[in-house]
């Protein structure tokens, strides 16, 4: 199972590092990252394997969201099934 983590907001030093550190702390394995910066607007989509997550998925969601709030970023974590269901037959 995978989670899609989206991060948006004002660019700054160490965003990816902080998100990655939180993922590592929860045993979520990062599989892919796509990121872009437009002027000073940062946007990233991260795909993480959550099979071995050491916390509840909902706690994982909350921890990343809290990390985002602390830096003025929006971090949303969603189970991959919603994207697969909506876009693939």
């Amino acid at each position, binding site marked *: 199972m995978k989670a899609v983590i989206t991060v948006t907001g004002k660019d700054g030093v160490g965003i990816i590092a902080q998100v990655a550190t939180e993922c590592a702390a929860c045993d979520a394995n990062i599989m892919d990252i796509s990121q872009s910066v437009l002027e000073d607007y940062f946007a990233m989509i991260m795909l993480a394997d959550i099979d071995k997550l050491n916390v509840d*998925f909902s706690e994982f969601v909350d921890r990343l969201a809290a990390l985002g709030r602390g830096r003025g970023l929006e971090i949303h974590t*969603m189970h991959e*099934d*919603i994207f*697969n269901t909506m*876009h693939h037959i």
Partner: protein
Amino acid sequence: MLDTRDILETIQMIRQENLDIRTITMGISLYDCVSDDEDRLCQKIYDKITTRAEHLVETGCDIEKKYGIPIVNKRISVTPVSLVGGALSPDGYLKLAHTLQRAAENVGVNFIGGYSALVHKGMTDSARNLISVIPEALAETSLVCSSVNVATTKAGINMDAIRLMGSAIKRAAALTADNNSIGCAKLVVFANVPEDNPFMAGAFHGVGEPETVINVGVSGPGVVSSAIARAGDCDLTAIAELIKVTAFKITRVGQLVATEAANRLGVPFGIIDLSLAPTPAIGDSVAHILENMGLEVCGAHGTTAALAMLNDAVKKGGVMASNHVGGLSGAFIPVSEDAGMIAAVEKGALSIEKLEAMTAVCSVGLDMIAIPGDTPEEVICGIIADEISIGVANTKTTAVRVIPAVGKKVGDSVDFGGLLGYAPIMPLNTYSPAKFINRGGRIPAPIHSLKN
């Protein structure tokens, strides 16, 4: 493999275009609660609801978090209580309403439906006792919703029942006069009522339903509206196709959530209700979809055609996305719950007569319409009879949820708050149908050949 564009599209639908799951509704049968003792009946009903739905709200919240999509309402529908009340007196039925209220509060749902009766052909003493206290029940509780089916295509129209409902609506308005007559917002009069509808105020757990079931209502007018706005100048064939594709995606999410909720709760999945259910929020309006299709204002000539196309395309797209489709399934056109409808009424572009025509081609009926508080009972009965006739003649569900707001007249408005929104008072044709209504009796079922 996940595609970045797909991910961004989904996130945009949820964050900017108000895509949500409107409701997870657990249907619960009350047949095994039947008792000849009033207190025992109420206790068994309370126990069954609070046991079966114990984890409903928390499960809904967990799924909401997992998929990152809001699940706005978690609700319960029960067997129409007039079918399990037996020999309950009117006071007994009132006590039952309070039981439902306490059970709903206990499990944390925001509405419970099924304070209902099916009287399309005739009325049992039990149904009559229930109907006699619906206004009091709605005034004394906040979470209990009531519906009465007064007609079917096969049975015809029970005009005696319509007369009772006109009176019940007026009394419900009077009893909740200090709160904008909100009692009427929890009371629906139906023709051809569906037995698996997850939406309030008309939800109940039908007679052919299993012990417990999960039904899900999807929404997403904002998503459809934005897709049409982005499409630019294309013809109506292309617009219909776009609506189908969008409805498919919306419904797939509903199916995902419904399946997961049913599995987690150990309850069978019933149906997905393919509905475009608006809210008063900006960007969540069915009227704005019609306007994006090219109408200057909702209510202009052409509105019925646009709505018919929208309704049909939503069903065509949604049906393929779900295992089982049911409930009301179609575009809802409540006035107070739709910012575009409210604006159209305020501009004078949308009349109750046009709304009536629109209900012939879409889901439900005259919904959340505020009318002058001094509207005579017979005029309300006339409104109901007209709307119900459209359903009966066209073999579809129609319904009436009007609010004769006490002390209000045309030019005023009423604010119900939350999802119920606010509504300008709409003018009515005030010529009297009293003699016609007071004849009572039944309008026979319509013929199904010689169609014209």
